[in-house]
């Protein structure tokens, strides 16, 4: 074999490697190019138009964006979403942390408890929301149990009659969704906190024990501050997830976010603008506003927790 054929062989092989490489990534790239990047540009473009499936299309410039700002239902959706996030995120973090700290003690049946707490995470949002609707309806299990254990006077003092319709009253609908999602997500948050808890060395606790610190003291002065990265991580994750609230809202409140738009979230607002009202350009504009919001938060999260997922 001469040097010439050998180098041609190597070049041929490089070529084959390159072609195989492109062939293997071709379909995914095509899909990403159209359904992500192309879609984004398409959204940006039609957000400048009155754009429906039917009816005339005319160029509006930034008209859609101006309409967003003057739409009272949009502001209602923003307020609802922010309210949801402001309560749900800390509540879920507190629950998850609480469970993690307890489960992290070396207890018997740990595997069972973990599985039980993780259980609601398995079910689809639709199934679990329907179960929730059933539990919280006027004749449901929740009202029944609070009556049976004599809590009705307490609830009555707070202004809730014995047959209060939790998801049907604009005063309690969003709070019911908050509790539902805190309940289903707390198991996942627990698992996150557990992984961080297990990185805290035993020596720290032993030192605290020698100093005579009690359980609460140890938690407040040592565990909680040491979990700082976990708080940031879980917090941003939940924040971004919470801004996208949709499934539970539309299943419990229908397309109208009933009662009285109390379950209309930003995403439900976008969905309704496009599918119900045929205002695709306007819907795309709202979507971009939401994207800028989420993108900023994601960047902050990436900045705080490293660039690339690696697992």
């Amino acid at each position, binding site marked *: 074999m001469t040097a010439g054929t050998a180098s041609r062989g190597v070049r041929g092989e490089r070529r*084959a490697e390159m072609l195989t490489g492109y062939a293997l*990534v071709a379909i995914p790239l095509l899909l990403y190019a159209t359904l992500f990047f192309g879609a984004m540009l398409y959204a940006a473009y039609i957000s400048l138009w009155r754009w429906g499936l039917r009816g005339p299309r005319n160029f509006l410039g930034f008209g859609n964006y101006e309409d967003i700002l003057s739409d009272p239902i949009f502001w209602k959706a923003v307020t609802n979403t922010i309210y949801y996030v402001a309560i749900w995120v800390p509540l879920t973090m507190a629950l998850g942390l609480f469970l993690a700290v307890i489960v992290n003690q070396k207890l018997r049946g740990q595997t069972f408890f973990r599985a039980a707490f993780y259980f609601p995470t398995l079910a689809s949002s639709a199934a679990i929301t329907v179960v929730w609707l059933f539990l919280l309806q006027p004749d449901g299990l929740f009202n029944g149990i609070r009556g049976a254990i004599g809590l009705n006077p307490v609830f009555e003092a707070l202004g809730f009659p014995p047959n209060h319709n939790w998801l049907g009253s604009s005063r309690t609908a969003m709070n019911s969704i908050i509790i539902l999602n805190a309940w289903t997500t707390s198991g996942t948050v627990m698992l996150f906190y557990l992984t961080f808890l297990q990185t805290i060395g035993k020596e720290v606790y032993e030192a605290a024990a020698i100093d005579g610190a009690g359980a609460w003291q140890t938690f407040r002065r040592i565990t909680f501050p040491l979990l700082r990265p976990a708080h940031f991580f879980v917090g941003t994750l939940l924040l971004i997830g919470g801004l996208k609230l949709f499934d539970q809202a539309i299943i419990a409140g229908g397309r109208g976010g009933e009662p009285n738009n109390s379950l209309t979230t930003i995403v439900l607002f976008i969905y309704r603008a496009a599918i119900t009202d045929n205002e695709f350009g306007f819907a795309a504009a709202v979507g971009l506003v939401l994207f800028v919001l989420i993108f900023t938060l994601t960047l902050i999260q990436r900045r705080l927790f490293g660039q690339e997922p690696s697992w």
Partner: protein
Amino acid sequence: MTGAAAPPPPAAPVVPAAPTPPRPAAQGDVAIAGDRGRTIRRAIAYVLLVSYALLMLVPFAWQVITSFKTDRDALRLTVIPDPFTLQGWEKGFLTLDPSIPQLFFNSVIVAAGVTISNLVLASMAGYAFARLRFPGREILFLAILGTLMIPDQLRFVPVYLIERQLGLITREPQNYLGVVLVLAIEAQQLFLMRQYFLSIPRDLEEAAKIDGAGFFTTFLRVMLPLAGPALAAVSILAFQGAWNGFFWPLLILQDQGHWTLPLGLFQFTQEFLSFWPALMSVTIAAILPILVIYLFFQRYFVASVAASGVKG
């Protein structure tokens, strides 16, 4: 997608810890006081854990009980159905339109389509990004990574319009394809495969190369058979996501004959909220398959928590 596909967390493998035996007690007076404190703390911990576990499980138990009740009995707070009846299930299987078997069938089609396409595309592209050298590889990979930042809620308006132009938003069977196409290759599955291929030693490929195998043959015959655990994780993640998915089916599936279980549940709750036993039977049909998969493949689910983030 369950409403909140969050970006993936850092690399912390979540492995269920085996219960460890209690540590031997320390010596001295302090230790005795500490032991009593620990016993009390343990008792409190157990009470809290058991109550929270009940809180987690009671709604599901109630759902199963209710499915065997009559519509009227469903509103009574009795634990034992009186009379015990299969009416709810009968209604779910026969009267509801679409019926449970039809919804189940649709869910299987969508979930199987998404799973298979993710397996094929993620393993091929994952291998290419891990092993093959071609110009633009890094930048393309970063671009795909970037798609994790684009929420479905932003792209759904244009994707809906694109799929309409492709003729996928229709009452014909290609409607299923519309859902599969959106979820056909999820970035997190591609990463999972790439990372796994990166962890396989190069020696085996070198051996195949010396035997004269081409790159694709090496992938198919040498690398793919070694990637079993990663393929299993991708299957489970993709299947669970597609099975439970609500957003895209709601948007894309036009004909009620195509509805998946979550979508059917949504439509039923808008219409007949008084048929609780029948509705509960549909929720059980929606949850049961994932539960069975969970029982058999628990470790992959736990890993998936680290990989896929939080549901909302």
